[in-house]
């Protein structure tokens, strides 16, 4: 090894930082009123709260409005190509395990062009955090329908209404076997902070869908659920260990039995456990909002422990070194059956 390579482990620990320290010197170029601002704000606040040193953070993104995120963070950042952030992030975390790696992606980047990579990120359980900004529209290309747009949505490429069925990010992540799955809302800072904190502390892939408003091309798409005046009655927060009660007066509950989740009195509500072996209850909840009169679940759908890919890969390297000794170039080249020519 050349001796001018300084391992990251010897890096001195810098002083704790406030929120401002995580802001880069770049001008933020999202549209005024965009939901992305509040997500950026929440992430910066959370990192300051947790005291994660800036040099140990790496934000990776693909393409789209949400994917500009790394430029606004005064950390390491890689703005990659459309849909592929999970592949970059997988390698970054595996090759440099001391980094805390975050992915910023959107419904198009993460579930359309990058759907395949998202599947494999989630199933491999890489220790990275995924912020999926879901605004049900393509923003940066100026307003075409996305894979999460509701059927019938009229856009520039669907003038008679989209005939695509929509994918539900939570159910997608459940199907992929993700070990942490949550949903939060751009306008609900307190909730977002709590969910992101749980995500940051999860070891493994933490997948967070964020309802994010696009003021220009799909304004108010979540209003029926998230608008402040209705939010408490239209959402139910999934908090581990707490009963599934909701409503302004906490006057309603959710009971899960068999393959159904229904609205009940608070006393009858199921106590929420996202760490069960089976993901069935989470799946039932993920479909609940489609029943008329049922709330939309937000909060933590799933949180289980499972080995991570990055650790597994590095353990294999350590095991090989322990078993065979550190590889020597001489042994590598001078292997096999040989003969001499004099």
């Amino acid at each position: 090894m050349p001796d001018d390579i300084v391992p990251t482990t010897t890096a001195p620990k810098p002083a704790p930082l406030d929120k401002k320290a995580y802001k880069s010197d770049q001008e933020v170029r999202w549209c005024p009123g965009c939901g992305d601002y509040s997500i950026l704000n929440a992430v910066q606040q959370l990192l300051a709260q947790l005291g994660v040193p800036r040099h140990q953070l790496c934000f990776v993104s693909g393409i789209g409005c949400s994917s500009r995120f790394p430029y606004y963070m005064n950390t390491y950042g890689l703005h990659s190509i459309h849909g592929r952030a999970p592949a970059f992030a997988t390698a970054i975390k595996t090759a440099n395990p001391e980094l805390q790696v975050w992915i910023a992606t959107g419904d198009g980047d993460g579930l359309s062009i990058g759907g395949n990579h998202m599947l494999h990120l989630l199933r491999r359980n890489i220790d990275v955090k995924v912020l999926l900004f879901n605004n049900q529209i393509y923003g940066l290309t100026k307003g075409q329908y996305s894979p999460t747009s509701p059927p019938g949505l009229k856009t520039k490429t669907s003038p008679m209404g989209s005939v695509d069925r929509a994918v539900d990010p939570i159910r997608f992540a459940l199907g992929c076997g993700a070990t942490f799955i949550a949903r939060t809302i751009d306008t609900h800072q307190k909730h977002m902070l709590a969910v992101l904190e749980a995500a940051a502390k999860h070891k493994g892939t933490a997948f967070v869908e964020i309802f994010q408003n696009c003021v220009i091309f799909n304004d108010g798409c979540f209003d029926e659920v998230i608008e402040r005046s209705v939010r408490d009655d239209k959402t139910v927060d999934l908090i581990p260990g707490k009963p599934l009660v909701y409503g302004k007066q906490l006057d309603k509950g959710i009971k899960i039995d068999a393959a159904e989740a229904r609205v009940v009195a608070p006393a009858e509500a199921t106590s929420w456990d996202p760490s069960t072996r089976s993901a069935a209850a989470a799946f039932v909840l993920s479909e609940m909002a489609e029943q008329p009169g049922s709330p939309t679940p937000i909060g933590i759908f799933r949180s289980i422990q499972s080995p991570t890919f990055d650790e597994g890969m590095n353990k294999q390297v350590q095991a090989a070194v322990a078993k065979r000794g550190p590889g020597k170039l001489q042994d590598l080249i001078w292997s096999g059956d040989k003969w001499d020519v004099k």
Partner: protein
Amino acid sequence: MPQSTSELPLQLIDSVVIRFAGDSGDGMQITGSQFTHTAALFGNDLATFPDFPAEIRAPAGTQPGVSGFQIRFASSDIHTPGDAPDVLVAMNPAALAVNIKDLKPGGIVIVNTGQFGDSDLAKARLTSNPLKDHSLDAYRVIEIDINKRVIEALAGSTLSPKEVQRCKNFYTLGLMYWLYNRDMEPTLKWLAEKFAKEPAMVEANQKALRAGFNAGDIQELFQGRFEVPKCDVLPPGTYRNIMGNQALSMGLVAGAELAGLKIFIGSYPITPASPILESLAGYKQFGVLSMQAEDEIAAVCAAIGGSYAGHLGVTSTSGPGLALKQEGIGLAIAIELPLVIVNVQRGGPSTGLPTKTEQADLLQAIFGRNSEAWLPVIACATPSDSFDCAVEACRIAVQYMTPVILLSDGYIANGSEPWRLPKLEELKSFPARFRTEVENFLPYDRNADLARPWVKPGTVGLEHRVGGLEKAHLTGHISYDAENHEFMVNMRAAKVMKVRDSIPTPKVEGPARGEVLLLGWGSTYGSIWGAQEMLAEQGIEVARMHLRHVWPLPHGLDEIFARYKTVLVPEMNLGQLVRVLRGEFPQRNFVSYPKVQGLPFRVHELVAKVKSLLGR
């Protein structure tokens, strides 16, 4: 040495070409590799050419299911696996039908008559039996019922009749060992190791091998035996036999070590490149992180991520995979990180000929990305040269902070030859430097090679962002400025052209001026050399030169090209290098000699082409 008691005359010969051909399930690749292994240990120079179908097991006995392995071994320094076999071993009618046209007139064909029943002929779609219709009259046909002989040899074995038949290839190998006076010991040993857990298999195959060898003595099939003496004209040193993919994989590990880096390889299995990922997955003791990605795109992106994180990113693929990776490679060019992309070329377009060779990805490698996205391209000439080229690809990638495409092809990847093992002190290191100084840090500052600083994320005080959007010179901030864009486009191109300052002008072999310069790149190396030698034997002196660096082209070429009336460029494509050369040296005379048959050039073809050019 051989245990033969034969009193038949032993004829010394310089070089022999044998082709083993049989059904995909007949074990011809193993037979060929074992013969190769033995020839190598004996000290012959050799070259091999495996040729097999893309299907794992095409229907038994059919022509598409035929798998072949050609080896040439010699007491002189040889450069190709030979134009035409001296001996063809045909395990069934399909193998005979597919290969007989290649056999030298008067050559020996050894036929397994046990597989020549009516149904076997029908499977091969033959309407008459070649053993009876005089179509083989031009050859010396040796008929032997190997099916039956194996049953006799293994009488009393605990193996099932089907398993007994699977020992046919070792019986055949034994017979060839007898014919060429070879030692059975290396193969006996190999069998013992290979089937260590199945003693019955070891015993049966060893028995079959010995029975085949003894048959040579007992059966009076041949009038004489042959001996190809050791090759003592190779440069002195320690040698081993090596396949291209193997040498290339070892070269990558060596290159990373010489740079003081660990490898992160992201790859997706694809013929004929998969053995590179397989090999590297087995080199974990060198700190190699190997990831079998979900697709070609994820593979290149993961490799770039690995480089971003401070490893040496590597991805290996074949033509269709390279097409998928190109957007990712463009990003690596924009963010200026080292990356080695290995492309083991095969026949195309599309899926094309997965197991056959071609060198038609040159233009894809040099130009195949959106916009002005330049990168260095280098090409392996032979199986053992793949080691040096892999090291060279790593050097350029690290020194210039750039992706590098390393071209191999199916012929090199699966072929083998003796490799003179380099001594460690012969390998020059090129340590990677990671920036740690905070003061005056600019992510897109450049050194004398025009390379930007490499910063490992995790380094305190150097936090910065990179990405695919155009960057401002020095700061790396997003910039849509018109003049900055043009400056950066030129800068990236200039950096790639700067590679020329660290590469040698290739050497001309043969007359320093004259009528014809044979110019090659990639796997045409051996055929061109062979052609030059054959022409010299006929009194025609031509020069030859080989390009390892195909982009950027080395300094000093124009002056060389000017000294020849014609520069003849044989390529296994429709003339891709010629297009590049005509663009760079419009005043010189290039003649393209294309061949796109999924097969390497034969020496005779090149000789005929040169002669026709010279009007002789």
